């Protein structure tokens, strides 16, 4: 953009909501068909009046509205998205094409089995593939996202424990864990015991030993953890947990670091989930849909959710007859459209490609780590895997915070890293480049970070008042929570006249 002052440019129309556009009686929809009045078919006390204030727009109006909204978004296909823990990698276009095939998109989950054999075969294969990558024995694809995977996994653990006679009471959760881990634990009826990581960024066996007892159903560990550090004690930790008949749950959200490098199933992990919308390249969609398949060791198989996809004589079947199963966690068969994308991704890459994926994810993260180390305080000196965590310690002294740095990055055309997470690192700046970025991009991103470090010294105000070039400036979040306007109402409207 060429430079310009506001008075020269602020002539564009204000941003309107759907409800502030259109005109009474206008419609994008037409389906000529003579119909009996619904009153003849349904008693009128069950019928509604028209939907007050519902949009009345033409087709072009609708498209323009959303097209222009889309331009206000940052996205992976536009730019680099270094969000730690989010694995914002490239979402292959071919996957988008194939899931739109009628035989993928327009199939009914309750159709007779002969009509969904292709879909069931896909799911069956995908279960096997994910099991192979993670070193687990069985996989369920039902959970709709990572958090639902966690809940499912914990339920499996609880079912197993209960079958042993005691569901137990607690889940051990390291302080580096993602918020969903403790939240899922609660939802599964467990108490959470937080376990601190050491100052080198990982969990020590000793620490687990101190809190492990017979009330603990499981340890829920993320590996690599959210510092991007491989939990080097994991095998001995697992032994400690197993010694007391506890189980080890691994949050596999960071599986992008491990494919072909180390299999959770060989680390003593009993249950894990993976996020297909991270490691397996399905698009994030502004917050889903995703999928959070859960893998287990053989001894947990009977507890897996129903239906199970099984190979029978006449083809693939949906097995409901598993009396020990925890039941269903989702309707139908999970987010099939997402599962199909992940399947296409694995097909395309193959075993070797998945391994190269993780290797390059590590290379990119370590490259960033190295380039920024002279300018930002590195939270830990341990080698990093697929992401690295810096802090604002150096910049804090100049009055510049992680938030300021993040917002200033927007002016450089970059989305900020994940910030203030993990919570245990003050002012965390967590960077995950993923393997699909070029070294050139990493160079320009780190150049921007370095420039901001310099600005923090030389012109801190510039950084503290950022962003300066985004569609809106910093937003009043406190005000939003106070006023709590969660929907448009005609009376608040700025609708243009006419």
């Amino acid at each position, binding site marked *: 953009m060429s430079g310009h002052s506001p008075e020269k440019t602020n002539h564009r129309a204000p941003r309107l909501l759907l409800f502030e556009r259109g005109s009474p009686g206008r419609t994008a929809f037409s389906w000529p068909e003579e119909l009996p009045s619904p009153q003849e078919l349904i008693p009128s006390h069950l019928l509604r009046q028209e939907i007050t204030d519902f949009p009345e727009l033409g087709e072009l109006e609708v498209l323009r509205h959303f097209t222009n909204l889309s331009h206000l978004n940052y996205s992976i296909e536009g730019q680099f998205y270094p969000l730690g823990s989010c694995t914002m990698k490239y979402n292959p276009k071919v996957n988008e094409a194939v899931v739109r095939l009628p035989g993928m998109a327009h199939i*009914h989950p309750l159709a007779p089995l002969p009509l969904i054999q*292709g879909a069931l075969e896909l799911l069956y294969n995908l279960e096997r593939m994910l099991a192979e990558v993670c070193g687990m024995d069985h996989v369920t694809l039902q959970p709709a996202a990572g958090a639902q995977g966690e809940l499912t996994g914990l339920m499996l653990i609880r079912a197993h424990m209960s079958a042993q006679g005691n569901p137990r009471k607690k889940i051990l959760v390291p302080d580096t864990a993602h918020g969903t881990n403790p939240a899922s634990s609660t939802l599964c009826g467990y108490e959470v015991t937080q376990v601190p990581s050491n100052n080198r960024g990982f969990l020590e066996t000793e620490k687990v030993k101190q809190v492990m007892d017979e009330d603990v159903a499981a340890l829920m560990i993320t590996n690599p953890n959210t510092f991007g550090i491989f939990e080097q004690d994991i095998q001995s930790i697992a032994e400690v947990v197993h010694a007391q008949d506890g189980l080890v749950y691994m949050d596999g959200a960071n599986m992008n670091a491990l494919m072909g490098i180390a299999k959770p199933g060989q680390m003593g992990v009993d249950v894990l989930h993976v996020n297909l919308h991270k490691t397996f390249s399905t698009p994030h969609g502004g917050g889903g849909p995703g999928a959070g398949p859960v893998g287990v060791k053989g001894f947990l198989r009977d507890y897996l959710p129903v239906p199970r996809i099984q190979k029978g004589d006449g083809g693939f079947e949906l097995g409901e007859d598993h009396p020990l199963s925890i039941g269903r966690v989702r309707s139908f068969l999970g987010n099939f459209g997402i599962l199909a994308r992940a399947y296409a991704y694995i097909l*395309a890459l*193959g075993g070797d490609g998945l391994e190269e994926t993780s290797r390059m994810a590590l290379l990119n993260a370590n490259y960033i780590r190295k380039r920024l180390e002279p300018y930002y305080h590195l939270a830990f000196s341990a080698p990093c895997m697929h992401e690295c965590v810096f802090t604002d310690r150096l910049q804090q002294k100049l009055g510049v915070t992680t938030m300021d740095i993040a917002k200033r990055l927007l002016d450089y055309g970059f989305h900020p890293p994940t910030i203030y997470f993990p919570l245990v690192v003050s002012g965390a700046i967590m960077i995950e480049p993923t393997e699909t970025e070029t070294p050139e991009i990493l160079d320009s991103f780190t150049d921007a970070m370095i420039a901001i470090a310099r600005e923090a010294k030389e012109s801190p105000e510039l950084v503290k008042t950022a962003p300066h070039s985004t569609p*809106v400036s910093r937003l009043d979040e406190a005000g939003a929570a106070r006023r709590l306007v969660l929907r448009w109402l005609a009376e608040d409207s700025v609708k243009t006249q006419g």
Partner: protein
Amino acid sequence: MGYTPHTGSDKNRMLQAIGVDGVESLYGHIPQSLRERAGIGLPPGISERAVKKEMGVLAARNGTPEDCSLFLGGGIYHHFIPSTVDAIISRAEFATSYTPYQPEVSQGTLQATFEYQTLMCQLTGMEVCNAGLYDGASAVAEAVLMARRIQKRRHRVLLSRSLHPQYRAVVATYLRNMEGIEIVEVPWDKSGQSDAEFVANTMDDKTLCIVTGYPNFFGVIEDLAPMRDACNAHGALLITVTTEALSLALLKPPGEWGADIAVGEGQSLGLPMSLGGPGFGFFTCRKQFVRTMPGRLVGETVDHEGQRGFVLTLATREQHIRREKATSNICTTQSLCTLAATVFMASMGKSGMRHIAEINVARAHEARERLLREAGLTPVFDGPFFNEFVLEVKDLEPMLGRLESSRVVPGLALKQWYPELAQCLLVCVTEMNEREEIDQLVRTFTGKN
């Protein structure tokens, strides 16, 4: 295929900068015993063309409404989707963006979500709506959990047996580990509606909520007045569950009936059937409950210059802030699907939504009429219905067996979920089932009866 852009010399340059001599060195600290057994036993990668081919082969093994006549509903519906929907949701700016934690560069997703929340409030007649949950089933589970948070000392849940069986299954799974919750099933009466007398008699001060389908799994439109009365009498919450969201364009909305929480599945609103997912769960309730709601919420605010803008709000309910005390564990949900629904509803508009709902009613009623009259099938319920209805068919099973290869699927056999309805078929007719298909459906039965 490979999606990593690194050339050999890229790698060398980067390794040199890092100061190691091989990529392996970057994970040399991982125990050798793990590394040496990490090889992935999958075939090598294939070309994009081969991926397309392979996926095409699988797709061809599935039956679609293009080559089958499907009268299947039961929570997933084959509806018209205007081309605008895919045009918008396939825009990379929406499809490949992250959860809008940085509002300055996420106003697209945020505003669209705010619009979604508004549209769903309008459609359901409720006061607030969250940004979406996984699906209708987990939305019911979340609703019951929320009802529990609101009424901590109560423990009974009245659950209509005519609520979608899979939804009931999910609720059971979610509640199993909550101490002390008791589920009581509400039977149906001969209209197919929940038995009002049973409700009146069973409801008590220990009851935290009653959960009913609206329409229910049999397509029957519940009269919510008796349930609302019973709830009022005992201080319980009324939770409605709509699997066929399009019906709300025509039916008296839950909010008008006085529902406290109204949830459901949104697939009908612009999402392909896709074997049942992804769709989304919608979750609406009274404003007074907003702080106990699960899921994300988008709120309107202003920026430093007073310009309108949108942000995620009330995050203090959520897992990333509250961790084990969060109202739900939900994080990634179904954002792109709620966007699809937003574009769908905007494209259909006020009159279009109603018109399409009316087409469903008309076709379903016509089909049922003909199946009774021309094919002599027996009605099972006499309550009002939207686009699904239950009929009894003599020798249902052998008949369905014969049809398996015919590419006509006349409906859903209810036996698997309701042994008492072993001879019954749930038939769904939408605007996508053309007249000729309905003729074919009728012939399927007349040929036999």
